[in-house]
């Protein structure tokens, strides 16, 4: 069982939405891999960074893409001056350090790539490195965390059931209004009244997901809008740049989004 080491540096700010921190810690103590599902910009990366710092663990993040190979994760031989040198990949490095390996957007990776995770994510907790013949055993503090965005538009991209079923899973969504309010104020220093208007606006815009918009407006975009407002930009313009334009390319949709923004921040 793991016991958290004292946090070396102050953990990045993370406003809990529920008891996800306790859940994560329990999973770490029991040496279980974790899958985090949630829309883009809802705080997944921030959460993992926060937990890693809290538990005093090194964090190694890999953004997955469809060209990511098993060797990219595990490591490869490089040719140096007339000789070959083995070079650990991020997964192996995290394993040796006993830290957290975080695979962001894991569904983007090819299925034959995610298969290397299998021996690590059952009770063996092993990583066989075929090319060097090494068999690495995961130290107790090592933890594997993966995340992806389960929106239906990604229906063609899902995890293999056999991969999926190796993780305990947590579902994230955009924070409740009060939590989001706290996030905005803490992250940007914006005044409460304006933060509240932004959060209400986000609620209005999120009703459109799946109908008029493919993706919901994220907490990340709200933070952007608040930052622009803090820099002295008019709320109107800040919302247009940070909320309306990033969400759509269609003129009618943007015009309607601006009308919705007007209900919170009127044009002068």
């Amino acid at each position: 069982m793991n016991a958290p080491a004292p946090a070396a540096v102050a953990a990045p700010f993370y406003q809990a939405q529920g008891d996800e921190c306790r859940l994560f810690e329990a999973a770490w103590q029991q040496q279980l891999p974790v899958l985090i599902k949630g829309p883009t910009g809802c705080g997944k990366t921030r959460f993992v960074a926060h937990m890693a710092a809290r538990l005093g663990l090194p964090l190694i993040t890999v953004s997955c893409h469809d060209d990511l190979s098993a060797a990219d994760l595990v490591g490869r031989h490089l040719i140096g001056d007339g000789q070959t040198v083995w070079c650990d990949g991020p997964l192996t490095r995290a394993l040796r350090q006993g830290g957290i390996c975080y695979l962001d957007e894991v569904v983007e990776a090819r299925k034959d790539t995610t298969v290397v995770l299998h021996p690590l994510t059952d009770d063996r907790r092993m990583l066989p490195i075929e090319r060097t013949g090494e068999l690495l055993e995961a130290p107790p503090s090592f933890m594997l965390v993966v995340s992806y965005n389960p929106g239906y538009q990604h229906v063609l991209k899902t995890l293999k059931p056999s991969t999926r079923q190796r993780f305990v899973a947590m579902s994230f969504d955009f924070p409740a209004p009060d939590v989001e309010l706290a996030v905005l104020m803490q992250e940007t220093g914006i005044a409460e009244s304006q933060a509240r208007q932004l959060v209400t606006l986000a609620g209005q815009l999120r009703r459109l997901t799946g109908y008029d918009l493919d993706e919901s407006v994220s907490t990340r975009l709200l933070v952007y809008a608040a930052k622009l407002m803090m820099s002295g930009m008019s709320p109107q313009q800040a919302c247009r740049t940070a909320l309306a334009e990033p969400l759509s390319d269609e003129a009618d949709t943007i015009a309607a989004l601006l009308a919705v923004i007007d209900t919170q921040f009127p044009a002068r």
Partner: protein
Amino acid sequence: MEDIVGGWWDRLVRRAAYRGYPAAVVELESIAGQAPLFFRAMGGDPALVLRSTVGTEHGARRRLIERLAGTGTKVELAWRDSQAFYLPDKLDLYPDPALNRQLYFWLMALAATPVPPGDWLNRNRAATAACLAAMPGLALVYQRLLTALLPMRPDPAKLPEAEAALERAIQAALRQPDIEQILPAIAQPPLPVPLWLHPAPPLVDQAGAAAQHEAQNPQGKRPDQRSRRRRYRAQRVAQDERKNGMLLVFRAESLFTWDEYVKVNRHTEEDDDNNGEAAAEDMNRLSIAQDAHTKSSKLKFDLDLPAAAYDDSPLGPGLKLPEWNWKQQRLVEDHCIIKPMLPRDAHPAALPDRLLPLARRLRRQFQALAPERVRRSGEASGPDIDIDRVIRFMSERMSGVAIAEPALYQAWPPGERSLACLTLADLSLSTESWVGESGRVIDVIRDSLLLFAEALSASGDAFGLYGFSSIRRQEVRLQVLKDFAERYDDNTRGRIIAIRPGYYTRMGAAIRQSSRILLQQPAARRLLLIISDGKPNDLDHYEGRYGIEDTRQAILEARRDGLLPFCVTVDREAGDYLPHLFGHRGYVVVQQAQTLPQVLTRLYAGFTR
């Protein structure tokens, strides 16, 4: 001569009497593209569609000149019911077009806001208060609208006592919406309040409506685009229901729209559609009769014929399927019977000559697409060299750092390109309607299926083609045009050529059965492509919201099973309901029905790239 002078006088007085600023008019069309999104963002029910109102009589005191001119009796107010939200066709209340435009948005916010029960004045007041509290920006807009409105309201001091009390209550509610008002009882209706929703939106006799379901009436041809949005006020029967109108939730079936099932009981024998429409607009209300014919449709259709004897050959007794009842929020097991059948009179046939050039082009395009789609780069072995990677590798080597086991090949791993596509086409009677030069909708669908099949068979992907129609829940007819196991050849072509329009559109059942078929296909990705020309509907209660919600449910089920449903429609109004069914990314509206074959093949190429 007298006629001419009379007409001139008439026009002059009308213009002088009209309350409004025609020069500052804002039309509903100008905001129609934004309205549904805005309404939903305000919390409005996504299943509701936008419609335009027609004036309802308000019966308030008219100014003398208005009485002289016979105008000023109609006012267009907004409202919502369980099917739609209704906005005036145009607004010219204010001299400033910007204000008229903002009034539209204000009315939508109001209509989207849920309110506690109460009388019409306090419902509007409470909805206003809720909007102002939640939306500081909108509150500012409201103040502008109100400031410009108040001078147009009658002065209570100049009204008889009872009317004055009501007018005072209205003005107080407008000014201070968070303070509850007592609605004075008075026979004379007040001057309408254009910032509020309709106090007594038009109702339909419910008993009459119930009888209406049983009436047999094919879906009519639609009048032109703009008038389709216009909803005609049906004859209201129950006087007392009018009093607590505003946001009453009606039974979904009790509403009639011109484009759906209006049966018009007319006094004269007009044969001309336009005449009928003009008359309807003027009459302001249409009475609903049990036995009348649908005016907008001249289609003849005899439902008494035993279906099986008359046309297609059924393949077996049929399969039972569930249906979603949205009012009960549950799936009713074994509710429909789906009957797979083959089209009658189908003879093996070659592709029609006129389609040959396009078919040849499509075949070439899809053949070229096929290998591209499966080529994978970065393979450790394979028949082709991946030039990009070789170059990268060489340069890395030159600089002294290189991967020992470079993956420098391209390959076509077997089984990787496994895609199955099931195409389900709506063959209901509404596809008989005409789409300009190229004939009827059904003709466009036939050509599309033929060409799409040519393209698909060139691509090598597994595909099946089906058509559907329905006569109540006992007979959902699934035409098997090409089974997945069958080859696309002259036999299957003959079946496509033999499709004919008939009956109704019970879309949910057809989708469920298609999903079952598609789920049996051993492919990694499975596309369920639906070609439609309008809303789901059938003879029984399967229309309006019921049909929409069942279809939505069937699509959700398909998606849950890992299928990818997508809809291609020629219904230009589909933007009102398809996002609710397929999601924003899940459909396309083909503006020009004639281009359906091209749209279909282009889409498919894009999907699978």
